[in-house]
């Protein structure tokens, strides 16, 4: 239960940070929401996706394991947040 709560808490923090970071990285005027598709809807490229992960690591003081990260885990902002919450450790 503790692990689940920790993961859930981290996921919420990742979503909050990611939606703000995406507005800045993608220079968007409109806000980003959890259900938005990263590539098809927001136009996030692979390289910007990697930059996003590094920015998140710095902001949340975590280290993300990208070994298993694939496009399948990156459909929406929420999908990526779930991956990060379950594949990261505190820095």
């Amino acid at each position, binding site marked *: 239960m503790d692990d689940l709560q920790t993961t859930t808490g981290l996921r919420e923090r990742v979503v909050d940070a990611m939606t703000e970071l995406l507005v800045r990285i993608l220079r968007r005027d409109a806000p980003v929401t959890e259900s938005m598709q990263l*590539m098809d809807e927001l*136009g996030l*490229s*692979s*390289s*910007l996706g*990697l*930059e996003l992960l*590094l*920015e998140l690591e710095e902001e949340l003081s975590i280290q993300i394991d*990208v*070994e298993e990260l*694939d*496009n399948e885990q990156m459909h929406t902002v929420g999908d990526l947040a779930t991956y990060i919450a379950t594949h990261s450790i505190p820095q």
Partner: protein
Amino acid sequence: MTALRAVATYLPAHRIPIEDLAGKLDLTPIQVKMFRRYHGLSQVAADPGGTLLDLLRGATEALSELRGRERQVRYVVYARAFPVVAPYPENALDDLCRAIGLDHAIAFTVTHQSCASGLLAIDVAGRLIDADDTEDPLALVLAGEKAFTYDSQLLPGTSIFGEGAAACLVGRDGPRDRLLAYACDVRGEYDGELSEVAAGFQREYRTLLTAVIRTALDRAGTTIRDIAAILPHNVNLVSWQRLCRALGFPIGNVVLDNVGTLGHVYCADAFVNHRTALARGLLRPGDRYLVVATGAGHGATFSAMVFEH
């Protein structure tokens, strides 16, 4: 049949840490970190005081098997990622041929498949000597460029180019490195500067490259399970990690040694990694291996060759 009779490379000793290139290439600190952490790139090879001719000459001088066989060389095929690499009327290829006693050979450049032009050059060389009626005709394939413009130094978000050169003697047959199959997929729809075009290329990259690899394997009558090693293009580590997952191929058998220390040496990657694979003892007689390249720029080309060592 086409065979690589000998492969030689020239890699200048100078190295530039990518942090030192950040200003020149407009890289932000986070982009430098991305290149180091995910792309596995720490430095690139460079020959600051040297010319393009110096690079190419370095490679042909290292190709000892060329000595005494100059008259057999009927064709010199220079593989380049960029159509123009020197101001008119300079022509490093002509200068090189004159300097090393190959001015009798038909010399030309293949380009327009960007960094996949190296594999195209091997294919073209093999076809030409196959149709040649002289005794044991040879072709000299060259690769290597000077990274002196912004576009020739950086693939934004993907890779940083390094300087080096390769020279490869191609024959109709040979005891090693016989070409079993070649597959090439030219995708004109990725010709354009728009971000949607780049996004489409990135989205389809793995699918298209995997498909061309499988086509080459099918044509060679083999499967990925029989492949001892992959000689990659040195684009970056993360793309190869993902491609290996899609292929079901062990990443440890991809010769990625040079990605971090040399950079993406244009069309010469395949030959540089061939030398590394031999030096590491990765290829034993009879082993089958893949050479894989992608050309991105004006359009995209996905290429794969299967060889038997």
